[in-house]
């Protein structure tokens, strides 16, 4: 069970003003972002044109993490705060704990796809407070004595309900929407109700609900999607199963030989200065940092900039996939992983 340091939930619960929630919402943005590099790395560690079924599942999850990050930033803007995206400390130094002490001892790294990573990292990240146990899966007994990400979001929800005026004070012109997301999921947060509903989207897409593995959008919650990958079977409705679902759907094939051998937690400094490999990884990190600059602009009064950042996301993906095919100098049998390190433009100097 993924823990969160109770102090953050307490901090939310003890807040006396919306301004006291700003750092908490900033934490939420950082949390949602922190899952994206690990998921993307797994997604782009497959050999070209293989594992399309697995890719589809991870892709759908990572896109939703981007949605959650956007929603969290919209809420922060709506309550009058300013998201800070383009700061060195915004980016986790993988392998690392997640923000807010989430997961206790769980260490999240930048690694290739494996069933081990799915089970021991991704499912851990997304695990609901009380996962529904479906046939064939026996989870370790859980103790509900600590706080979860869901608790944190629900605390935020309750505090916004308590403190915020019906019309939220933020500048509506800062709200970010996108044609790539349904307006049911991503919409301007203008009122208290909008904020409360939007938090439900985050929690339910991540965890599902206590009684169903489906989120508000009728899609499987992330935890169960990862569980499908781990079990190699789709979770489908099953009237004979105790909870109405079982992992008896179509097989999700996975062949580990389709995964490129990315060196875990690659860092730029591991590659020789002046080498082509180093330059490509440096360029990846420049693109990544430039993307964070672009998102910072987007969430700070220039929502139309979101379209401009899409080219960077595309470049990032291509660079990541090229690196994943490039032998790691001095590490036989490994290729280069993306490192997701923040660089200022001027570090080129």
């Amino acid at each position, binding site marked *: 069970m993924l823990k969160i340091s109770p102090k953050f939930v307490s901090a939310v619960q003890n807040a006396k003003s919306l301004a006291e929630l700003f750092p908490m919402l900033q934490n939420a943005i950082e949390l949602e972002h922190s899952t994206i590099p690990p998921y993307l790395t797994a997604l782009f560690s497959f050999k070209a044109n293989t594992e399309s079924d697995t890719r589809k599942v991870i892709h759908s999850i990572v896109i939703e993490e981007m949605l959650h990050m956007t929603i969290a930033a919209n809420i922060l803007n709506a309550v009058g705060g300013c998201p800070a995206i383009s700061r060195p400390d915004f980016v986790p130094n993988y392998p690392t704990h997640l923000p807010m002490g989430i997961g206790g001892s769980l260490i999240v790294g930048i690694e290739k796809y494996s069933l081990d990573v799915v089970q021991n990292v991704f499912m851990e990240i997304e695990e609901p407070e009380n996962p529904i146990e479906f046939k064939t899966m026996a989870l370790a007994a859980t103790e509900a004595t600590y706080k979860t990400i869901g608790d944190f979001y629900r605390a935020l929800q309750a505090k916004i309900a308590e403190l915020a005026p019906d019309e939220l004070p933020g500048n509506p012109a800062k709200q970010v929407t996108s044609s790539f997301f349904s307006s049911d999921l991503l919409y301007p947060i203008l009122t208290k109700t909008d904020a409360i509903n939007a938090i439900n989207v985050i929690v339910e897409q991540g965890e599902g609900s206590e009684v169903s593995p489906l989120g508000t959008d009728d899609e499987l919650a992330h935890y169960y999607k990862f569980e499908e990958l781990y079990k190699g079977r789709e979770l489908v409705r099953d009237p004979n199963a105790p909870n109405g679902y079982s992992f008896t759907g179509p097989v999700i094939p996975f062949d580990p030989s389709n995964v490129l051998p990315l060196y875990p937690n690659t860092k730029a400094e591991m590659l020789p200065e002046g080498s082509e490999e180093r*330059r490509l990884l440096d360029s990846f990190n420049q*693109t990544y940092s430039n993307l964070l600059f*672009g998102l910072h602009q987007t969430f700070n009064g220039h929502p139309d900039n979101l*379209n401009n950042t899409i080219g*960077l996301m595309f470049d990032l*993906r291509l660079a990541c996939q090229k690196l994943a095919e490039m032998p790691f100098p001095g590490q036989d049998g490994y290729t280069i992983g993306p490192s997701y390190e923040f660089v200022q433009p001027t570090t080129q*100097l």
Partner: protein
Amino acid sequence: MSYLHFPRIVFSGDFSSDVSTVNNDTQHYNNATFESSFQLPGQGATNGWWNPEGGATFGFQNCTIQQATNENGTTITDPALDGIIGQLVTGAEGRNSGKMVDLDPDQQMVSELWGVTFRILSAHNELLLEGRIKPTGFRDLQRRQTNGGQPNGQPMGASWTSVLEDVKYGKLAEKSPILMALKAKTQQNKISINLNGFGYYYAHADGRFSLGKILGCIGPWFENEPELFAPARRLYGVYQRGQVFGGSNFIFDADNARLSIDLGGSFPIADSIGTINTTNDFYLAVSKQPLTNPPAIRNVLIDSSELEIIGKVPYQQGSTWLNSTCGIVDFNMLSADVVNDLKNSQLVLVAAGSSSTQYLLIAREAIDGIVCRADNFVQRIDTNQKVTVNLYAYQYGQPLPQTEITITMEPPTPDTPKDKNSPPISITYGNNKPQDGLSFAPSCQTNAQGMAQIEITGNSIHSPRVYIDGQIYLLDYTLANQQPDSAIPGAAPMSISIHLRDDFPIPETPTWSDISDMMTQFANLYPIMSKYFINFADPQAMIAKKDILKFAFTRDIHDPIYMPATRDLSETKRLTILKWLDNPIVDDPATAAARGIKLKSVDANAELDTAAPSEQQQKLVEATKAKNGSLINFPALTNLFEF
């Protein structure tokens, strides 16, 4: 005004250009004969050349401001005197950096920059200046490295000249007197910019694959002047067939007795990073006699009595000279004689020998000091579209008014039967045909500013190259009654390059068969897309990604995200793809055949036109091969400037 005028800021560093190379071979466009090996790295048409997985990205890397020259001609290199010195030149923030693309496989000699943002930043990431480079193709392709292009593989360099548009100044710019002076002097909020690229790496060597060196300069721009070349005088190399000092811009300011010359695109260098190992003394001088020398192998000596020496080119200042000055040299306080003579006599570059009475002619100014150039010289035209091309004529730097410029379409080039191609893959079809593909007036007259305009209309053509969209036309321009100058560097230097697209009516209800040919070709030519992103040859893959495809296919053409990055799709084909994405009907080939849709990706049994190409056209073919690295054994130039 131009980038050579004051105030002027120069910078240098690297550029990255991740151009794709499968599309460098015309035969690769034929879907019917395409093979997977064409997507693999390796020379020759059976492979995909040196960067098959290129993504066409262009960007500035490691570029810094080297020096600046203020309005009174004083050059500053100390950041204490102007904070602009040492600052970073970089690309866009929060969006991708830009693209570099060819016009067409049959015209690869005018590669354009699209969607490139130029920014100057402080060490603390504060903006000093930002502008968008107006799309422009390179010109003055010329040999730079005397060592035969080792180890990078490309001994040539070229220049992009343009304007920065929509220029914005950051708050910090107010602390830079040079930037404030530039701001005060420029018009229409545009700044002139020139980029000289060289030392580009085809080879996986020195950690510099797909990087090159770049020397840049920005200066003022005035309205009613060309945007995509400098209204400057021109010096052309004639020594050793013009393989050194091929083409250089210079300006002469009689009022201030000053000459400024840009040798950054022409100075011969020993290696890929700009080291100069020449030790000769070079002088600029005014020739007392008119010169018309063609580029030749024999040495031309000029007696000192025929020259008015201006001064020595001060390049012997250490190995960083080129990268720190960008090869731009100012000669101030010219003598009264020089000032008087330069007004209507040619500038020459000469090398001093052991005898003090004779100099070796390296480069001379254009014959009669004439410069005639088309401004927007690269065009993409759809059926019935009309474009206006601006041409400018100057003599000794002054606009040439009321002067006739003639425009002629180059004759058709031959088709090459499959068995004459090496290796034989497909027929390749010639260019400039049908000759009635374009309508334009055969001549035009310059106005008081030396500018003339021609209107070019694209007529309906129907796949004259069978499996490649549209046709390439070169329209040559020249001043009427002016002797052609064979020393002008570059391939097709006096031509307007036009890609006229096929007449393609948008179907009422497009089906996959209507677009499968173009999408399959796309998948073949750009493996980076089909391998890593989406297989365009698969309609289901297209449907699965239709939202992002609609997004990319509806960007403004100046947006770096615009698809296709090559910008070679006609408007009607682009709209057809979008229409299909809105309602994606996947039909089978039999149904398509019944509807009369004929796939073009086959070798037609057309009657081939095999007439011999002109000398100019053959030169263009050879230059294309050289640019693509086909001539890998570029011989080194040795014993230069000895006489």
